[in-house]
């Protein structure tokens, strides 16, 4: 059953530009994949590490800005991409050193503040970042000499990266490192009594998460060919967190489903109303109050509840 479903999904994704009907939808599919990579990256911390970050848009933006800035400064695409990921990793290390002085709410507050600093730099340090006007990226890179200018070509390139991200996440979840990260989430004191360096495990998790966040930022920079301070706002951080939580944090498919849901909602909502933030906030509140464990397990629970007619106390609350 499961391999069949996976194969079906793979075929659907591989042939998507041929059946979805139009470059507009192909572009939306690329966006979903990019955000899914971002959400997978954040899920490492939120789902497996129990560390909720509200500053990840800062890391995402760091990668996007660094790539656009380096290309604008005359660097080659490969050098710019490497530099951008390197800088994002450095920034993640800085985030980790500062934010890992706390866990839980403290971690959330510190990452929020750090994210706001990075937003402030993008917005106010005009001689470096061009402020509100942002930076244009002259052209998409041409890996192996292939042009990514068309929506379908870009979609396939994104799909490759996305598949790599999913594969690496699956390895990570199954690996001893993944298990020890889940251990630090559930029983940090026992883990440290067992001789694990809890801080180091969390630090590496932040780096791993930052790496994929950076990759997503890079992809987004290539997709849009434009970066602006808007990428780094608190509402971007909240959006990606919503993807993780709405789909179901701590699962592999949850963030992907969440990314598809949020991007689709955003696209549909913005076609009819301008008030995306209102919709975002409302879904956020609804999900947290009604289905804190995410849509898929949550709807299952509601279904069971409806069948039994007698509410059993919610078991799986959001961590």
């Amino acid at each position, binding site marked *: 059953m499961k391999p069949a479903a996976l194969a079906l999904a793979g075929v659907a994704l591989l042939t998507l530009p041929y059946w979805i009907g139009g470059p507009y939808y192909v572009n939306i599919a690329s966006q979903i994949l990019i955000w899914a990579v971002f959400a997978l990256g954040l899920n490492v911390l939120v789902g497996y590490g129990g560390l909720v970050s509200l500053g990840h848009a800062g890391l995402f933006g760091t990668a996007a800005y660094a790539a656009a800035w380096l290309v604008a400064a005359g660097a080659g695409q490969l050098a710019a991409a490497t530099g951008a990921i390197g800088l994002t990793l450095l920034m993640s290390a800085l985030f980790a050193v500062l934010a890992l*002085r706390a866990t839980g*709410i403290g971690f*959330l507050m510190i990452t929020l*503040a750090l994210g706001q600093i990075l937003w402030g730099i993008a917005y106010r*340090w005009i001689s470096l970042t061009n402020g509100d006007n942002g930076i244009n990226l002259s052209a998409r890179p041409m890996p192996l000499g292939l042009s990514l200018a068309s929506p379908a070509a870009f979609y396939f390139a994104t799909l490759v990266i996305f598949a790599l991200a999913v594969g690496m996440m699956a390895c990570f979840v199954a690996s001893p490192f993944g298990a020890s990260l889940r251990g630090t989430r559930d029983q940090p004191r026992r883990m440290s009594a067992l001789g694990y360096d809890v801080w180091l495990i969390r630090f590496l998790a932040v780096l791993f998460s930052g790496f994929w966040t950076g990759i997503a930022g890079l992809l987004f920079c290539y997709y849009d060919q434009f970066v602006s301070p808007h990428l780094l706002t608190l*509402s971007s951080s909240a959006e990606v967190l919503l993807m993780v939580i709405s789909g179901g944090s701590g699962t592999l498919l949850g963030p992907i489903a969440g990314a598809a849901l949020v991007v689709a909602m955003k696209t549909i909502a913005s076609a009819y109303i301008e*008030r995306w933030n209102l919709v975002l*906030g409302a879904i956020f509140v609804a999900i947290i109050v009604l289905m804190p464990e995410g849509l898929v397990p949550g709807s299952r629970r509601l279904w069971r509840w409806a069948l039994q007619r007698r509410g059993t106390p919610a078991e799986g609350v959001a961590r």
Partner: protein
Amino acid sequence: MSQWVVLAVNSVSLGGLLFLLSAGFSLIFGLMRIPNLTHGSLFMLGAYVGVTGLRLGLDFWSAALLSGLAMAVLGGAMERLLLRRLQGQELPQVLLTLGLSFIVADLCLMEWTGDPISVSTPATLRGFVPVLGFVFPVYRLAIVLIAAAIAAALWLMLDRTRLGAMIRAGVDDPAIARVMGIPVSRLFTAVFCLGAGLAGFAGMLGAPILSVYPGLDGEMLPLALIVVILGGSGSLPGALVGSFVIGVLYNFGPALFPELAYVVLFLPMLLVLVLRPQGLFGRQTP
């Protein structure tokens, strides 16, 4: 020379406003263990409600009181109807306040449009007073006096009354406070109302100098956050000292380092986090 004096006066008056905003934020954080991410929204919404009050013909002070009351009611309702459902789950509570802040921001944009609204200074407080050879704007001095009066009242309330003693007990150890028969959950509502009311009042009080515009919430919330990280959660003196430090940095930062103003603003917070994570006046949490 006079430019620095102007900056100093602006710093102190902004410090006063920030104190009104962050005192409530700090108490809520201290008692309920959550940063209320709607606090900036309450500040902005308070200012907008005050603007509507002015348009309906209220005078400035009644409008400011109206903002405070309206936000207190809204804050109380938020706590009773939504946060209460997630009692004990701190993370969902924080995310809930985040979601609410987006909703409030968008509703404000719908109702009061995206154009900045300037509020004129109340007639009796216009003009300048000469002090020691400098001229100071009366309204800014008035803000400082009002903030000082409210700080004193809050301190008296916390230090000398039964309610204050219960709040302090709740901040120090909610579990034991509950065991001792203190109605901690009712305190949550009371403190939330108080904090929200102060934020709304501060919003209207600040309107003549800051004006009211979309994004004001996102501007004020990080400031309240830094103040509380600096001063320590649940500590009134911490909020007071933190507010003035941030008031000074917010005004002198852009003058000294125009492009790095935001970084300068957050630097002391980072220092405190590294050297004294519980904040200048905070207590080590068990």
